[in-house]
């Protein structure tokens, strides 16, 4: 009897466990609950608004819409049909029909899935007449994107079908809907897409529609997407694309007085129309899969390079602010700068006895090495000097994401004392350990947009606005952070001598960009050449220097600030300088006057150099033996 009695206990225990579980499920709050308006007897019908257009700053249409037609299926409602006729209508074979049907049925028998995506217009007209014969199928109109100017793919981004993860995170998106994936399409998704309207229709238990649910109390109207106007100048952008043809690198042009991005060129790039419609998935694989040219990588925002000589501007400004130098301070330079025991930073051929102005327009390494050392050594501890230096540099927006309204970017690097403490655990480092920072080599790393923004701050003589790509969203106020002035830690008066030096880069016969000067425009600029390395077959190999140029114009009341990087282009004055000045000329004058130079750049190619890096076992960086 005793052993048998256990069974009573079991039955009662299990009964109690079940009742408690049901109490939790049916009485208490729990994650399995579903809202009553998500009731299965209510059919939801969506009304998709048209996605907003995207214009450039002058009202040129960059992104428009085009109608497309998706054939949708609700597997549960499909009645037996003449598959052969149906397949012929759609130009598919029976295997494809079965595959698509199975796929849809696996997803859900009662929710709509896409059966054939983006049916052509001709097929649509034909299908439209016959649709009534095929129960469970219907055609859904959808707008797809169209890019009439075929430019700025990296800026506008693209739209694509929303992925599972996003569907789970938000309660807005449904399977098969489109969402912005890159660029402005992504950051301004909520404005561009508008809000879809929802109609709820009550069904009875035989799945027949019996009218609107609660007289449409819960129905919502579609709100159309808003048009977005960019700060981009489409003409300048297209011109930049042409100049960068067959080269790798980036151009970023900013209007200094507002922080508006006028051009954001990355090369190589792609025609945004490739990422639309039925050809998208094929092209997407190809473009994302090109790990050598990396067309989907925005070099203007993401690529990190040592800034090289343009960084001397910052070194000079900090020197002035910290009273380490004034505009008359003179250093000597005998083909370089000697420091410590046997340390030597080479410099090119120019006269000795260097003052600030001369130091800038000839890009003298020794002058700025002296200045940098003075800054770091001004304080008792190199740590303090380094942190002061870091604070000044970061006030130009370097070493951080700038906060612009595009979804990608890189941070760059401006080292501080803690950074070197990690590198030298003994903490015995001094100014000379970090001397390369003076001339924008060493540890300093920047992105082209950071450099363009820095240039804008110099052009403004001490402040910048956060760079941004959207000028106006219809009916919305522009984000406050884009109209907030960021003031640098350098006093306004210290900018004038530096700006004079940058002007002489063009104007003085010995200036490093004298050959790129433009008649009638007062351009200030600075050449740069940055050393860079890569691993070839596991060996750290020096590549040909990057060609760098920053500039702004006109000198007083500047309208454009620009940074140009051309990967492995060697001297700054060879590629980047001409590109920068041509862009400035094009923007300010609407046309260019230097036909010979323009043709040299448009037709110039660095493909041979890039090819050699990969395929030539004898590869040597240009200028090195």
């Amino acid at each position, binding site marked *: *009897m005793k*052993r*048998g009695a256990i*069974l*009573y206990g*079991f*039955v*009662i225990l*299990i*009964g109690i*466990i*079940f*009742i408690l*579980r*049901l*109490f939790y*499920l*049916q*009485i208490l709050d*729990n994650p*399995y*609950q*579903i809202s009553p308006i998500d*009731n*299965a*007897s209510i059919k939801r019908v969506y009304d998709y608004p048209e996605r907003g257009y995207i214009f450039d700053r002058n009202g040129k249409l960059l992104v428009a819409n085009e109608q497309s037609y998706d054939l949708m299926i609700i597997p*549960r409602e499909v009645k037996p049909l003449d598959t052969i006729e149906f397949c012929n209508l759609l130009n598919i074979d029976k295997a494809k029909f079965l595959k698509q049907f199975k796929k849809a049925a696996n997803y859900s*028998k*009662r929710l709509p899935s896409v059966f054939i995506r983006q049916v052509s217009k001709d097929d649509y007209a034909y299908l439209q007449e016959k649709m009534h014969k095929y129960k469970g199928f219907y055609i859904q109109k959808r707008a797809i994107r169209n890019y009439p100017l075929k430019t700025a793919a990296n800026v506008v981004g693209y739209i694509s079908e929303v992925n599972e993860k996003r569907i789970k995170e938000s309660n807005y998106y449904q399977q098969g809907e489109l969402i912005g994936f890159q660029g402005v399409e992504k950051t301004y998704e909520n404005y561009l897409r508008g809000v879809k309207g929802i109609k709820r229709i009550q069904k009875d*238990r*035989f*799945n*027949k529609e019996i009218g609107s649910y609660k007289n449409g109390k819960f129905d919502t109207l579609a709100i159309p997407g808003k048009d977005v106007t960019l700060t981009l100048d489409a003409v300048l952008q297209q011109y930049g694309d042409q100049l960068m043809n067959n080269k790798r690198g980036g151009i970023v042009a900013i209007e200094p007085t507002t922080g508006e991005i006028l051009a954001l060129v990355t090369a190589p790039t792609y025609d945004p129309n490739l990422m639309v419609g039925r050809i998208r998935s094929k092209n997407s694989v190809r473009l994302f899969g090109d790990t050598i040219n990396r067309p989907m990588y925005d070099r203007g925002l993401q690529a990190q390079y040592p800034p090289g000589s343009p960084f001397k501007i910052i070194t000079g400004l900090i020197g002035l602010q910290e009273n380490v130098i004034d505009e008359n301070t003179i250093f000597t330079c005998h083909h370089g700068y000697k420091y410590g025991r046997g340390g030597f930073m080479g410099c090119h051929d120019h006269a000795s006895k260097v003052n600030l102005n001369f130091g800038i327009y000839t890009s003298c390494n020794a002058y700025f090495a002296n200045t940098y050392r003075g800054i770091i050594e001004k304080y008792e501890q190199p740590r303090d000097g380094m942190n002061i230096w870091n604070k000044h540099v970061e006030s130009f927006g370097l070493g951080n994401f700038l906060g612009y309204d595009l979804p990608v970017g890189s941070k760059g690097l401006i080292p501080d004392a803690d950074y070197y403490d990690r590198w030298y655990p003994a903490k015995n480092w001094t100014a000379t350990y970090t001397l390369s920072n003076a001339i924008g080599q060493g540890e300093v790393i920047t992105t082209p947009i950071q450099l363009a923004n820095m240039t804008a701050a110099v052009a403004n003589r001490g402040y910048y606005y956060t760079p941004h790509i959207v000028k106006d969203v219809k009916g919305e106020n522009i984000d406050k952070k884009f109209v907030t002035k960021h003031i640098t830690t350098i006093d306004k008066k210290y900018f004038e001598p530096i700006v004079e030096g940058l002007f002489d880069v063009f104007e003085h016969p010995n200036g490093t960009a004298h050959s790129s000067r433009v008649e009638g425009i007062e351009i200030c600029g600075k050449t740069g050449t940055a050393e860079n390395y890569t691993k070839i077959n596991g060996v750290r190999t020096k590549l040909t220097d990057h060609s760098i140029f920053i500039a702004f114009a006109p000198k007083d009341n500047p309208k454009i600030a620009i940074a140009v990087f051309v990967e492995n282009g060697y001297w700054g004055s060879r590629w980047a300088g001409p590109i920068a000045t041509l862009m400035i000329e094009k923007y300010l004058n609407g046309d260019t006057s230097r036909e010979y130079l323009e043709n040299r750049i448009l037709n110039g190619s660095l493909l041979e150099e890039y090819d050699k890096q990969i395929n030539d076992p004898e590869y040597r960086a240009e200028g090195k033996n």
Partner: protein
Amino acid sequence: MQREKTNIFTGVDGWLVLMFILLVFVGWINIYSASTSEDHFEILDFNSRYGKQLIWIGLSIPIIIIVLFIETRFYERFASIFYIVSILSLIGLFVVGKNINGATSWYALGSFTIQPAEFAKAFTALAVAKLLSDQAFTFKPFKNHIKAFFIIFLPALLITLQPDPGSALVYLSFFFIFYREGLPGYYFVVGFMGILIFLLTLKLGSIGVFPMTILIVVVVFLLLIIYLAVYNSTKLKKYWMQLTGVFIIASLFIFSVQFIFNNIFEQRHRDRFNIVLGKTTDTKEIGYNTDQAIKTITSGGFSGKGFLEGDRTQGDFVPEQDTDYIFSTVGEEWGFIGSVFVIILFSVFIIRIIQVAERQKSTFSRVYGYSIATIFLFHFTINIGMVIGLLPTIGIPLPFFSYGGSSLWGFTLLLFIFIRLDANRSFEW
């Protein structure tokens, strides 16, 4: 000396019959709700599932009458023959069985199919009762353990090979009657520990190559040794070999768990375990049924949406809703009140079987009674436990509720043989 009664209804336990009728009736109401559609809604539409179920219910009446008509002695005498016939019918499936949903579990006569495994339960219960009621039988000699195990494992094995492992698991419920009749308790301790270690090993995962559970076992073992060494060193001296043996076997078992799970289980089995252990939260594919069933039950709330008003039931949200997932219909349309009613009804039904079994004078009837009580309990626990998300997916029907003729007749047979045996108790002395 036995004397047979004359009226077949004399001595029949009214409570059991009443509860049987209630279960079948409530079950059919829910099958009707789960299987009506725009094409089938007339009650006497015999092309529909609920219409067919009505036929099966009707046909169970002659089965009941035949079962009640047959003399008690007949069940005892022919228990072995019934058993052998049911074993042969299971073997026959491998020759002429019909494959439905991947398992060869059915004989087909035209569109009519019958599943012998549903009847094998009753006949195995008779065979077990016959063996255990033998005057000479006790669980003392080990060879009798083997005999008893053989009787239940043979049909279980044949059913596993169909393959229908869920239905085979039901045979484990016979272990209770073995225990009741004298099987040593250590089988349960070992079995329980085995299952516990198995689940814990999967749940807790491993650190490097060592499963978490092996660390726990080592710690427990060391604590035990220390405890014995300090308080009871004579016992330690006496049992150290057994202790070490247990430790080694436990360790080997733990190490083999991952291997068995990864290499012998099929992916669908792994998925089911992972869902219940909370290691995956997939609700789109593998966990779809259970997730939908739980949401459906939850949406019923306290008093339910009402008969035929459950939109998720009517909208076919839960696959297999009229068979294995029938309880979700109860939950949605009849709410907490209805669900609790069904649970209490089943509990009382099983308790009544135990009570009746306990009052039997003959071992044969008692053993048979306990066997069917545990079989009903097993189905009840596994099925509802699965539908409300407490147990992994094991597809076995809810007695008298789930759609299906074989299952209904099998359970009817199981119950009424017992009612027949019990009806005769006052005539035995």
